[in-house]
């Protein structure tokens, strides 16, 4: 601008907060929005007045409710919301009726003379910071698209206004009914309000009561949030998919370890012998096998028992004994195999082989002492015992796998149950919860 610009003598005076009187009851009316509001409600007689009219023409009077509704943030309170100062200038209570049950919520009108209007909503301690959409969302039955994000249809319901206070940027009336459709993409919500053929889209973002209390410096604490709200961010902060990816990475590492240990294991068979048992044999039932050497370092030893059992069992009491030191490992193994047919078809249980692994057996000269016990229906049976040293043990991997699996499972479960309670309140409840009410949104 150059110096030649004349002073603007015609500049209107600085806008001021207006104090007027209610034409109905004479009570003082404060207009905080510098004439931006459409309607203002007399706090004393509940007349809805035309804020654009210098005489504040009465537009509607509504019955004072038996129990008055008090805004949690009093009108005139200022606070800083996302970096901008806002003043609470209006308050309304609305309710939705879903399947005969009334769900009331509160809305606050916020104003800044430079930034205009903004809104807060509160339902059961859940807050949303709402502004009118500047861009047009696209609506695709079941979902909506806004600023590149897809919002899922949550609920369509009738919203009735039943209590108003202060100033509004639109022509508010008690008893007015709008059709509100909510689409969610937590922590955001997209709402489409249809009132008298006029469609208004607004976008909200979930806020915690604590944040509201801090923003407006309110005394005490916010009401506790109850239940799960439609666009409440999941307490599961971690991305569930990401955690499964991490799990998969660990599982692959584990699998690699397992394979390399398997490759490194010598799996050296040091003993194998077949025996035959006859019921008629008299004498001591236990016997000792030939000796064998376990070479190399201290390692695992696997004892494998094979017997052609067929609806029988055999039980062998083993002792692996170190010939040099006398150290012994006692254990009993059973081989049994049962099968047959019943009303469910064929079944079988057990098998012809049994293996057991003894950890950390030092090298040395060893032998086995075996004491067989047999199914009383058996008269004789052959069986084979083999000993292999340095076999890989996979049980530890199983435990590691289970331990690794636990966090992603728990997180997935938490995320799942949270989403389940979220959607159980929607028009699309999870399958098990939709007790017969199978109407789809149209």
């Amino acid at each position, binding site marked *: *601008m*150059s110096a*030649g*610009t*004349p002073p*603007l*003598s*015609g*500049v*209107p005076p*600085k*806008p*001021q*907060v207006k104090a007027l009187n209610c034409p109905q009851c004479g009570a003082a009316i404060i207009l905080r*929005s*510098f*004439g*931006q509001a*459409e309607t203002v409600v007399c706090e004393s007689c509940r007349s809805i007045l035309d804020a*654009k009219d210098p005489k504040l023409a009465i537009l509607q009077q509504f019955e004072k409710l038996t129990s008055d509704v008090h805004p949690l943030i009093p009108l005139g309170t200022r606070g800083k919301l996302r970096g901008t*100062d806002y003043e609470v200038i209006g308050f309304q209570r609305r309710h939705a009726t879903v399947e005969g049950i009334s769900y009331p919520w509160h809305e606050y009108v916020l104003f*800044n*003379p*430079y*930034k*205009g*209007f903004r809104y807060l909503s509160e339902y059961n301690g859940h807050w949303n910071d709402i502004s*009118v959409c*500047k*861009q*047009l*969302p*696209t609506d695709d039955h079941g979902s909506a*698209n*806004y600023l590149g994000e897809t919002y899922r249809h949550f609920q369509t319901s009738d919203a009735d206004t039943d209590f108003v206070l202060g100033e509004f*940027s*639109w*022509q508010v009336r008690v008893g007015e009914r709008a059709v509100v459709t909510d689409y969610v993409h937590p922590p955001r919500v997209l709402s489409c309000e249809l009132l008298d053929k*006029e469609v208004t889209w607004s976008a909200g973002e979930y806020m915690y009561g604590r944040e509201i209390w801090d923003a407006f410096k309110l005394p005490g604490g916010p009401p506790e949030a109850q239940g799960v709200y439609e666009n409440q961010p999941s307490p599961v902060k971690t991305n569930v998919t990401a955690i499964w990816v991490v799990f998969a990475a660990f599982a692959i590492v584990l699998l690699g370890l397992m394979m390399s240990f398997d490759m490194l294991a010598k799996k050296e068979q040091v003993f194998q012998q077949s025996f035959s048992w006859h019921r008629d044999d008299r004498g001591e039932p236990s016997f000792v096998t030939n000796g064998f050497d376990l070479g190399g370092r201290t390692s695992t030893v696997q004892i494998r028992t094979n017997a052609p059992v067929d609806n029988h069992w055999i039980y062998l009491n083993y002792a692996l004994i170190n010939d040099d030191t006398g150290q012994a490992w006692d254990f009993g193994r059973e081989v049994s195999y049962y099968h047959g047919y019943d009303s469910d078809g064929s079944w079988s249980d057990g098998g012809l082989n049994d293996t057991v692994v003894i950890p950390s057996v030092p090298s040395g000269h060893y032998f086995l002492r075996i004491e067989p016990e047999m199914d009383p229906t058996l008269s004789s049976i052959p069986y084979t015992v083999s000993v292999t040293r340095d076999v890989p043990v996979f049980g530890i991997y199983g435990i590691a796998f289970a331990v690794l699996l636990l966090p992603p499972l728990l997180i997935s479960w938490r995320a799942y149950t949270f989403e389940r309670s979220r959607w159980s309140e929607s028009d699309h409840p999870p399958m098990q919860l939709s007790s017969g009410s199978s109407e789809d949104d149209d």
Partner: protein
Amino acid sequence: MTQPVANCPNCGAKIVFRWSSSVQTVCEYCKSILVRTDVDLKKVGQVADLPPDASPIQLSTEGIYGNKAFVVVGRIVYEYDQGAWNEWHLMMNDGASAWLSDAQEEYAVSFSAKAPNLPPAAKVEVGELFSWNGQRYTVSVITPAHYRGVEGELPFQYWDKTDVTFVDLRNEMGKFATLDYSDPEPALYLGEFVEFDDLKLKNLRSFEGW
């Protein structure tokens, strides 16, 4: 920037044009609507007092749009059943003329655009799709408005209007279009919604208590 100076034919006050292409201005002293002719200024009308409004923008407000500085040199005020809004006439620093509409602090910047076969107002319906300059727009609202007054410099004569129909169009990219039926021939404006902060406005009005 050229600043042709003349005197108000009504009251003799000095009239300065901040924008060389201005066709019309309003005398700040006597509120006469003055139209430029080849030789001098002609008084064509008188502006009644503008309604008190609460726009933070005023004549001489400066800002930036698309890397170009601008200054607010004029405005047209309209009323409709939901209130009033301003169309602020911007002079961009490259000499172009633009409009900043300000309706309840929802801001959009638009430029006059040319397109063939603009539909007559009676033929347009909410929800209808139009395509201009490679962008698709959906008719969002048709507003019967009432001309309320003018202030400052305008790029055309605009003073004898009464009822004017506006067709507003939007798209999901935040683009904005207006069909202005002030004249027999519809006028098209294309632009986009803007954030107040992005305009980096200076010389705004001040509000008591803020």
